[in-house]
């Protein structure tokens, strides 16, 4: 199905920045934002901008992709534990010949995610390996 421009626009806040939520009652962090705490049910949640640094919790190199990602194959996807936030899902880019491992340091960058000339382009946050 074609991407709905309205649906894309609605997500700008948490796609373009690491804007999530923190529950003021139980202190749990969430990304993307939530309207109530998934853990304790409280609606006392505030926006929270997480730091851009974190480490790889797990990862995979994708060789067979859905159509709109075919130009990027092979590419790395990962779960990243943010230093002061939750585990989030994204891609690792600009890897080159380096061998990834669990615990490797990464930082967030802003990149195009998918889309070609005929479709709505989507942008979001991906991660790069931190130089030693």
């Amino acid at each position, binding site marked *: 199905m074609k991407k709905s421009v309205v649906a894309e626009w609605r997500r700008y806040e948490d796609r373009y920045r690491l804007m999530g939520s923190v529950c003021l009652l139980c202190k749990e962090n969430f990304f993307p934002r939530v309207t109530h705490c998934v853990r304790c049910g409280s609606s006392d949640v505030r926006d929270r901008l997480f730091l851009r640094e974190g480490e790889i919790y797990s990862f*995979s190199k*994708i060789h067979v992709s*859905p159509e709109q990602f075919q130009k990027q194959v092979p*590419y790395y*996807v990962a779960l990243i534990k943010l230093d002061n936030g939750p585990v989030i*899902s994204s891609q690792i880019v600009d890897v080159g010949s380096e061998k990834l491992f*669990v615990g490797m340091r990464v930082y967030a960058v802003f990149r195009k995610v998918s889309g070609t000339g005929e479709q709505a382009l*989507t942008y*979001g946050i991906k991660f790069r390996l931190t130089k030693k």
Partner: protein
Amino acid sequence: MTKFGEHFEKSLLDLSLEATFGALTSASLTKDTIDAIVVSNMLSDTLSGQGHLGALISGSLGLTVEAFRVEGACASGGIAVKKAVDMLKAGTHKNILVLGVEKMCDHSSSETTQALTNASDAEKEAFYGITFPGLYAMMARRYFYEYQIGQAELAAVSVKNHYHGARNKKAHFPKEISEKVAMTSSKIADPLRLFDCSPISDGAAALVLSSHEPQSQRKPVRIVGSSIATDSVSLQERKSLTSIKAAELAGKRAYIEAGISSNDVDVAEVHDCFTIAEILALEDLGFFKRGTAGYATMQKKTYYDQEMPINTSGGLKSCGHPVGATGVKQVVEITEQLQGTAEGRQVDNPQYGLTHNVGGSGATCAVHILTNTL
């Protein structure tokens, strides 16, 4: 059930009716005794342009009974069985047809893969190009990290399931494979290779669940435990990647309902959509301790004539995975095992069998326990 595989000459409805009449015949029932129909299917809207499956099946059988469809990704079949059990317990119906069906091979694999991605979290996962194999690959990678196993343990699952599938005429790929073939097959989502992944299949499976003693000559089999549990759809919100909480919970609840423990289970069909998923299942259900299921598989403990027979049908890997049909097929296989009719792969005199059907990367799990005792 129909044979699982590529059925280019048969439609979604053809497969549904073939499985339905097969189930009616083996239960020695006529279609007019059916008083409700629960249909399990995930992708008919997307891939066949067909919704409204409850009435489609009922009408095609010339019936006017209550009929509806349930969807819970790859766990749709287990959910359908559970819903029928609930209706029998409530006493509103007596003979319920449970039909699982999926038609996936009419499309290119990238279209079908795209459709299957609906079972993951659209915003948190699919948006970034994380595929289904990618999600299980991340579970596998984390499992490798925590328990120091590798691709050989995963390959052992695939080799064993193909060994069983080669003994099942209904299997999509009834062929034995070597460890070398599994470990050198093409990369899909590292560390998962082609032979770590279940295939795209067409097929249907059907059951008739009754609240009274069956008329059939076959040994009666009862469902004595039936449970569904859920968890977050996205992996990022899970407390652990090396166990599936919904499976652990559904298993525990089903054991309590059946009044048995994991030690009493003689044969099980578990959801091996990817090889790592079977390893997690064996630990989540309590058959093996955490971190040891891969080694147990390497030691051949899960073959049909060994101590803990797993996936005698060939599992999703070799028998095939027509998504909506899988959870129903698992119950068909365990029923045949308990009736002693699983020719070529019959477990020695089993009394309790279990099915474990997972949706998505573990957000839904349905567990059923069946027995031929009582």
